[in-house]
């Protein structure tokens, strides 16, 4: 199985954590840091729901794997597609590294870059309806390129 896993609905966090531990049991890594993201009960939501554009996510992940490898480390991730009820988990990201410093630095960079640039869209589920979480979403790196392209064209007219 690839180091990037997508699942319909909530993640089986224990199975994922344990399997990743076993996969790297003989890899001689000294530090394993998973980040587990769980849906909080707030604002009366029943669940969050996710759309993912997998091809771009896979390219983003593969670039991260190469970046981690340069530092002797390895990353893994799992994410849900579709509805994930409150108090269940939609996201696990993990770093394995020989040493603790690199692991602590990478898990922070990996999780923050994921939040900013992974092509995933989040919706609140309220009374069975999906509402795009616009106020919590952020434009990806390179956003606005179409507006810039239009401007460039206008200047040439």
């Amino acid at each position, binding site marked *: 199985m690839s180091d990037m896993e997508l699942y319909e609905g909530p993640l089986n966090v224990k199975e994922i954590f344990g399997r990743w531990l076993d996969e790297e049991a003989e890899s001689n890594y000294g530090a394993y840091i998973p980040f587990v993201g769980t849906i909080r009960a707030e604002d009366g939501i029943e669940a969050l729901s996710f759309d993912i554009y997998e091809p771009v996510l896979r390219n983003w992940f593969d670039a991260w794997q190469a970046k981690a490898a340069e530092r002797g480390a390895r990353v893994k991730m799992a994410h849900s597609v579709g509805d994930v009820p409150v108090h269940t988990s939609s*996201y696990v990201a993990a770093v394995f590294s020989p040493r603790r410093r690199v692991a602590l630095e990478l898990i922070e960079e990996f999780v923050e870059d994921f939040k900013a640039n*992974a*092509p995933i869209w989040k919706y609140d589920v309220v009374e069975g309806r999906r509402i795009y979480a616009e106020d919590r979403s952020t434009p*990806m*790196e390179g956003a*606005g390129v179409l507006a810039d392209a*239009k401007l*460039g064209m206008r200047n040439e007219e």
Partner: protein
Amino acid sequence: MVKVEFLGPIAREPMELEVASLAELSKVLFEEESIRPWLEKCAVAVNDVMVKDPNHPLKEGDRVSILPPVCGG
């Protein structure tokens, strides 16, 4: 032809267009009322590779993805 897909919350069917650049594409998209409000905040991938250069050319068969603001996790 270039195929244009709108991802996530943008409620819009894919389009097939004869355009040779992002500039030409943006001209068409900014004229669509339902799409225009998204464009300033959207990123673009061509054939699943993120594109940050507004001068990026487009060729026959390219797939363009329009990616609105994200929130994974």
